[in-house]
């Protein structure tokens, strides 16, 4: 007799028949009936009407029948809560059964029934089961606590189950420990700051002991939990690593990857010169390679993870290129991932092999795979300079095949190769142009148009080619339209005499006939640029482009760090943080690697780290669309990023010119663009002469477009330190700069006095900042319009924005500045008071304040003493308020005034403070709490400065 027959009943009136059978006296018949019910339930039929009849079968000593009834109960109890109560007695009774299997079954099932009334009854049996003599019951009860917590978190806390669960971590049975760890980890996830999993060296030791003894699954739970721990120092870190490494030989890939996660994380804390560090690195490669001989699904997960690991620590697998070669029978998802990793590992040493493989792949069948292989060839060219020539000729071979998608893909990558090696491979342009007609994908069309525009002076019929695209302008995708607009403007600037009509045509198409705001805006900007100042236009549109660098689609570092903490999990498969695909409170915590040196950590609180990360992206991005400013300059990246960490000391001209333009355009874009293109009036006569020198600030022409707010009211308010000398005349060929920072009417200003102590006139001032902790950047060019005569001084106020590139500085408020004049470029650094970054809307609601204060872990609190201050609490409060430190509440306890204060930094970090002022005592105590505790020290300094001033 087989069970499959239960799936086949489909007749009407079935429910009634089943009802009768369920109430039958014969045990066998009853059981048959319940099986039918379960089969119906499985295929999705609604059999909830049978609830009372099924529950009646629960009282049985036939375990199989009982389990079936339980299965039914778990499914339908929620829809019939009142009836479900009928089952409670049986559960409670079963929890007392002499057979541990039955006790466990009862407590396991009861936890799955999400009915309030039942959960009330669950507490007592659960409490007993948690202390049961049999480990099987205890391990089941441990998971049950997590179930109950999911239904009613408050109840679990009130009943003290969490403490019992914590005790189970010290249980003698390894499986109980593992399940307790799993349950606690899950509960802790929904209480990010509860410190529930109080991991300390003692508990860690217990976990490591259990690790050696429990089942493969238990080992995974424990390793995943260990990964959340941050060791106190490198010694502890090493000793944990030593005890985790044996897991790398486990047959279960999940154990291996979880161990890799722990090691990757803890390695961050080991000093690189340590012998052990090298040993560990060597130990990581073989298990990762072994994962590639697992089943394809596991290979896929492993490859996605290896992709992350290679980005973080390329040295681990640098000699293992061959194992990533694609096999003919690999599933497509494995092939695509292998290809990605091959490019990451490509280096001068192995490039010949890699290229030979890629060429092989480009003849495969799967379109996606072939495309990716072609693209990979281009990426190799960009990554390994020595191979560029061979790559280009391989790509040309592929273009000759005339396979449509191969050609298009090849053109897209060749564009990037041109960007990387200008003036080297342009001879192939003719071949590319032959294929113009076959391009039907936007990306390939856009790439081809870019090439034509960029090299317009070398292509005789560039105007014809571009004109041919213009015919169907409105049918093109935005990407192509934008590129076409830029290309024609370039063409015009290069060959002004012949192409005037063309450029007017495209400008009017873009501004008047298009309803795409990006296209219109760009059209207007070009139009105005061309009409106002053709020199500037040339300078902007034909600006020298920074070279793109090797790595293309690297994951942004903060995200990568977070993903490394999630090795093995879905996040590592999707390459997205958990918050991107998990609903609710779970997974919103951002994990970070422990104190890694030199990894470009920013000061942002965890909440803002991903946003900040964006601006931190390395200057290495190949086509990123939608970056308006970048596109305008026809760069694919924002201009400030081009300067790199230190301003290039080379030709000062390039330094000033390009970045000033960047800054200027920034303001231009920020300003009002509502005007009509009336300015086009002046545009019509093509520029006759192109002045050779454009050293004069380009802003001259653009000036009227943006108001640089020099005259904002100097209301006395926020604290501003007195001016200090930043750049002594000795060091700067006679230029002395002293200055200070101030926040006036919500605008951060850098106020400087420039003094000329040399014998000659100084002109052409420009300024630029290095990346800094809060992204400070000039909001406009430095306004020194008249030449600075010898022995003359001038006061300048430079408004600053906080949207520049971010890099953590040491000390935090350090700012590195480069100033240029007609003589030279000078560098200095200064520090700004962090109070300047306190924004006006930094007043927090009381409730929010209370919640946030509690929410921020105590570790983040720091206390400081302010000495010798003789103000009463009201005066203190007023004084601070004028610097945007807001007092939210005041409490007087035993002669002590407690002021609760909040402030918000420009990058959205909140700082909460508790200031204790005792009458008669000149020493105040201030406690600061912030999600980014690094800022506390600076904030304290500001407090002191404000109060003592």
């Amino acid at each position, binding site marked *: 007799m087989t069970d499959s027959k239960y799936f086949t009943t489909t007749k009407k009136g079935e429910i009634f028949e089943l009802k009768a059978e369920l109430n039958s006296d014969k045990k066998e018949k009853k059981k048959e009936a319940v099986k039918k019910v379960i089969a119906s339930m499985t295929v999705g039929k609604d059999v909830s009407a049978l609830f009372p009849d099924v529950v009646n079968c629960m009282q049985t000593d036939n375990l199989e029948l009982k389990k079936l009834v339980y299965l039914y109960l778990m499914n339908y109890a929620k829809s019939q809560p009142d009836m479900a109560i009928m089952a409670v007695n049986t559960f409670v009774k079963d929890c007392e059964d002499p057979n541990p299997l039955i006790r466990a079954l009862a407590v396991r099932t009861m936890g799955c029934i999400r009915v309030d009334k039942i959960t009330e009854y669950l507490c007592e049996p659960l409490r007993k089961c948690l202390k049961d003599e049999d480990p099987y019951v205890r391990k089941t009860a441990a998971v049950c606590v997590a179930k109950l917590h999911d239904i009613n978190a408050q109840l679990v806390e009130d009943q003290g189950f969490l403490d019992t669960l914590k005790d189970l971590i010290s249980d003698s049975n390894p499986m109980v420990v593992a399940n307790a760890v799993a349950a606690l980890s899950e509960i802790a996830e929904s209480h990010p700051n509860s410190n529930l999993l109080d991991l300390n060296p003692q508990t860690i030791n217990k976990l490591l002991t259990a690790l050696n003894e429990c089942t493969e699954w238990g080992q995974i739970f424990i390793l995943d939990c260990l990964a959340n721990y941050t060791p106190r120092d490198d010694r502890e870190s090493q000793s944990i690593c030593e005890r985790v490494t044996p897991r790398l030989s486990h047959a279960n890939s999940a154990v291996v990857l979880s161990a890799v996660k722990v090691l990757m994380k803890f390695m961050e804390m080991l000093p690189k010169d340590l012998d052990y560090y090298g040993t560990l690195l060597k130990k990581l490669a073989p298990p990762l390679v*072994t994962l590639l001989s697992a089943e394809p699904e596991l290979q896929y997960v492993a490859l996605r993870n290896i992709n992350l690991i290679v980005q973080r620590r390329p040295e681990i697998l640098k000699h293992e290129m061959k194992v990533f070669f694609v*096999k003919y029978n690999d599933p497509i998802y494995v092939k695509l991932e292998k290809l990605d990793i091959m490019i990451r590992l490509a280096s001068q040493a192995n490039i010949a092999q890699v290229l030979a493989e890629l060429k092989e792949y480009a003849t495969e069948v799967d379109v996606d795979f072939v495309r990716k292989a072609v693209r990979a060839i281009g990426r190799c060219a960009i990554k390994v300079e020595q191979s560029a020539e061979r790559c280009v000729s391989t790509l040309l071979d592929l273009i000759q095949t005339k396979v449509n998608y191969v050609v298009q893909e090849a053109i897209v990558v060749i564009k990037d190769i041109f960007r990387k090696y200008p003036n080297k491979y342009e001879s192939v342009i003719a071949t590319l142009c032959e294929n113009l007609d076959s391009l039907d994908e936007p990306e390939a069309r856009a790439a081809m148009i870019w090439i034509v525009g960029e090299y317009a002076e070398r292509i005789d019929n560039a105007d014809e080619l571009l004109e041919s695209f213009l015919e169907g302008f409105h049918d093109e995708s935005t990407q192509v339209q934008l590129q076409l607009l830029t290309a024609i403007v370039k063409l015009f600037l290069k060959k002004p005499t012949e192409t005037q009509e063309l450029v007017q045509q495209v400008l009017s198409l873009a501004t008047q006939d298009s309803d795409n705001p990006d296209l219109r805006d760009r059209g207007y900007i070009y139009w105005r640029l061309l009409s106002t100042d053709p020199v500037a236009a040339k300078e902007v549109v034909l600006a020298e482009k920074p070279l793109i660098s090797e790595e293309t689609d690297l994951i942004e570092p903060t995200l990568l760090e977070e993903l490394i903490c999630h090795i093995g999990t879905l996040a590592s498969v999707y390459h997205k943080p958990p918050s991107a695909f998990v609903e609710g409170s779970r997974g919103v915590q951002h994990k970070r690697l422990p104190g890694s040196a030199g990894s470009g950590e920013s000061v942002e609180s965890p909440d803002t780290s991903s946003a900040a990360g964006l601006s931190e992206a390395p200057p290495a991005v190949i086509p990123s669309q939608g970056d308006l400013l970048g596109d305008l300059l026809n760069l694919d990246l924002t201009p400030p990023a081009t300067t790199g960490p230190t301003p290039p000391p080379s030709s000062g001209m390039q330094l000033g010119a390009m970045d000033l333009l960047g800054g200027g355009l920034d303001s231009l874009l920020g300003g009002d663009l509502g005007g009509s293109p009336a300015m086009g009036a002046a545009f019509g006569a093509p520029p006759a002469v192109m002045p050779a020198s454009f050293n004069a600030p380009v802003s001259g022409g653009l000036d009227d477009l943006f108001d640089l707010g020099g005259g904002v009211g100097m209301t006395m308010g926020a604290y501003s330190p007195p001016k200090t000398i930043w750049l002594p005349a000795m060091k700067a060929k006679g230029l002395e700069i002293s200055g200070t920072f101030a926040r006036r009417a919500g605008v951060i200003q850098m106020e400087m006095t420039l003094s000329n102590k040399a014998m000659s006139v100084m002109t052409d001032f420009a300024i630029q900042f290095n990346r800094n902790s809060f992204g400070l950047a000039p909001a406009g060019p430095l306004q020194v319009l008249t030449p600075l005569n010898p022995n003359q001084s001038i006061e300048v106020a430079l408004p600053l924005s906080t949207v520049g590139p971010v890099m953590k500085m040491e000390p935090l408020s350090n700012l590195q500045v480069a100033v240029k004049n007609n003589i030279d470029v000078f560098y200095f650094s200064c520090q700004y008071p962090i109070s300047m970054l306190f924004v006006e809307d930094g007043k927090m609601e009381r409730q929010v304040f209370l919640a946030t204060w509690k929410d921020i872990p105590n570790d983040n609190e720091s206390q400081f003493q302010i000495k010798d201050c003789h103000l009463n609490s009201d005066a203190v409060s007023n004084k601070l308020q004028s610097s945007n430190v807001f007092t939210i509440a005041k409490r007087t306890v035993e002669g002590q005034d407690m002021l609760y204060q909040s402030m918000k930094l420009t990058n959205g970090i909140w700082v909460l403070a508790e200031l204790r002022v005792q009458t008669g005592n000149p020493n105040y105590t201030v406690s600061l709490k912030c999600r980014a505790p690094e800022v506390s020290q600076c904030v304290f300094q500001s407090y002191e400065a404000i109060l003592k001033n």
Partner: protein
Amino acid sequence: MIGGLFIYNHKGEVLISRVYRDDIGRNAVDAFRVNVIHARQQVRSPVTNIARTSFFHVKRSNIWLAAVTKQNVNATMVFEFLYKMCDVMSAYFGKISEENVKNNFVLIYELLDEILDFGYPQNSETGALKTFITQQGIKSQHHTKEEQSQITSQVTGQIGWRREGIKYRRNELFLDVLESVNLLMSPQGQVLSAHVSGRVVMKSYLSGMPECKFGMNDKIVIDKQGKAGSSEDGGKRSEVTQDAHTHTPASPAGCAALSIAIDDCTFHQCVRLSKFDSERSISFIPPDGDYELMRYRTTKDIILPFRVIPLVREVGRTKLEVKVVIKSNFKSSLLAQKIEVRIPTPLNTSGVQLICMKGKAKYKASENAIVWKIKRMAGMKESQISAEIELLPTNDKKKWARPPISMNFEVPFAPSGLKVRYLKVFEPKLNYSDHDVIKWVRYIGRSGIYETRC
């Protein structure tokens, strides 16, 4: 953690549906069917995200197993669990087919209840499961109190894979070294990549709780011993090798190194990993019956049993001439079996003429390949096939991709050069010694993906 687990037949009808978490609804069952099983194109990823719900799937013949979750679960664990689930089901009722799943659905639900609790995998060793999940339906009175606690301590215990009190009249051990040798060779005969992935599979019929120690010619161990001057293995080696029930290989091609470098190995959970890590010794208490003790991978000094030399010549647009030579590269006293060479042919092949020196060759139009089979072939021999392939003229611009020539075979030695040095058994409580255990060792080398580009 895993929120639910579904099993579907090839049509997408659900056969088993078990939901563990409240956030997974019935609609998840349909979402997977519509978006994955019924999807038009080929599956592009074993992980699919549909409306913030993630689906992990594996296929066994035409049965789909899908695990569902809304959380950031350990993806590796989910797949390992799905494979384990398949193993457990096969151990209970054989092949995973629609018929078998339907026939055993009550059992499957019972298993799912036991091995997955609230989405957390629990003990899933079939040895342990079979003691208390039987289709007889255990009743509490059938087990004495001791039996019950024995079951629970086994399920939760440190040695979850073995029960106490096993007795055999004859203590026997079968040890198979199974290797698959993988090769990718360029048309010019250059090795692009080669590796051996091997498994040590055991069948143990031993009484009590025996402590075993396994030794092989691992380079690291041999070098260490060489330095220490220990000669512990001398006597034992012959004992293991003398009774191999197939050929006991002397160094097959005459070039096998005395010791081999193992790139990496993984072990069954019975092996004490910390001991391996510190002393590189493999010690364990074995499960009863069949199990896989270890897997390993080697890449150095591999004996490639066959060399394939292809020669493809395009004669005009409608004809191809293919000549393939295979050479066996091992000791001439050994015999390779089940040799099969698969030569791909273009899609527009209209006819094939074949001449081969040995075995049988056939053109299989449905597989677009010439399949050449040879039953047996001794070492140091050579054989050849030549084919004339006629092609239909086509307009297809795309060139034929020339898939690689692949090969299958079986040889009675380990291409990695691995040798078992000893397998010692100690059972302190029962009175049998290492010498009383009958041990059998066998080496089998098979082709994995053994390809030569042409």
